[in-house]
């Protein structure tokens, strides 16, 4: 609930190194994650979310978990990690945490494609 009341890292990055969007409004959940990468680490990360309380909270949490990490480490962040850090999610909301982790991986993948790495 804390991450819903006071989500961290909301916003866009003007000149992102990587962008990942998952979900769609038809499903009722959509997340976009923006990253800035420096020395192979996630220097800055922001998100925007259309979705329920769990969607907002998991997006916020995944950005906190990923910030400052090396890309290889960030890629290893799983849906379960996000849910655990929040203290667990009800089963019906687990798909929201899926989206958060997927959005992060998608942003990293986008960065790699752009850099040709």
């Amino acid at each position, binding site marked *: 609930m804390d991450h*819903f009341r006071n989500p961290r890292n909301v916003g866009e990055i003007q000149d992102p190194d990587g962008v990942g969007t998952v979900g769609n409004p038809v*499903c*009722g959940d*959509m997340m976009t994650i923006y990253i800035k990468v420096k020395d192979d680490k996630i220097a800055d990360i922001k998100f925007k979310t*259309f*979705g*329920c309380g*769990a969607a*907002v909270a998991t997006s916020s949490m995944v950005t906190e978990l990923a910030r400052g990490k090396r890309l290889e480490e960030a890629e290893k962040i799983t849906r379960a990690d996000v849910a655990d850090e929040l203290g667990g999610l009800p089963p019906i909301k687990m798909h929201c945490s899926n989206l958060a982790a997927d959005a992060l991986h998608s942003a990293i993948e986008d960065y790699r494609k752009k850099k040709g790495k």
Partner: protein
Amino acid sequence: MDYQAGSPVDPRVIEAMTPYFGTAFGNPSSTHSLGQEAKTAVEDARSKVASLIGATRKEDVIFTSGGTESNNLALIGAATRSKEKRNKIVTSAIEHISILNICKYLTKLGFNVKHIPVDSQGMIDTATIEDSISNDTNLVSIMYANGEIGTMEPIAEIGRIAHDHGALFHVDAVAAVGKLPINVERENIDLLSLSSNDIYGPKGVGALYIRQGTQLRPIILGGGQERGLRSGTENVPGIVGMGKAAEIAAQEMEQESTRLTEIRDKLRKGVLDNIPHSYLNGHPTARLPNNLSVRFSYIEGESLVLSLDMEGIAVSSGSACSSKTLEPSHVLRAIGLRHEEAHGSLLFSMGKWNTEEEVNRILELLPEVVRRLRRMSPLTPKELQV
């Protein structure tokens, strides 16, 4: 402001019920005076419920465990009545989930169920009803008003069409009883479902009006209570409570509906005028006096509900995230909303203890709640990003 989910019981109802838990605990079927006292109380409640809906004979009202059970008895009881060979059932796309699921069951039994669509304001077109009902139609079931979007249906006209073709007409009036002046005689209604908790009575009790001469196959069998139509020892305190609630509703309906309409319209105007990209769901004028269903572009319903809950305001949403099935409300989809529009919907259902002050408070808080969620959303266009 979520009375459609659950309401408190009026203190006057609690007071009326209390003796029947303790000292007047008799079974209405008993011959002795303790039993007869309970029977008298039940019959008195029956008259009050009949009065509320314009039924001339109190015997035409039977008590059930609630709106859902009344719907089950009405539909299954009518469809499977003996000597009735016709197998078509006509209902609408916006009925309560109990009606929809009962119809699914009836389809398995071999009935042919047709769901009439509604227009973008949730209204049924009587021309479509006219085309759909014919001499093969056994039963028509249409709700008096929809509790999610508030729209009131042209019930008397639909009843007339049903009767012209010899079909029975059932009306699920759970959302409308106590708020609108229902009259089963004038409105051509054969079967009417109502529930106690929607009129500030206790949960777990309801009623079914059955026009004299209408045949029904009972679905709960046993000792033959309620003229054989609904067996089981009567829930005397609950029934007494429902009777009292019905009496209060009849007395206070006009005044209360006027009051609710005023504060509801104040909220409506405040929301639609001050929050950009906000829209009304349902019919603008033919709607329940206490219902305000609105949608906000670019944001999602459950996060709206949570945000308002944090401020001490309880409302509900038709979004997928807030439903058990993760599907958006079938009612919002039936009025033609796209998924993302249905997801952004919010329902304020007002009741007796809501006040103008509460409306004012919501009007202060809601615009900022919406702004906050729009700032977070990837769908919000640049010009709204404040």
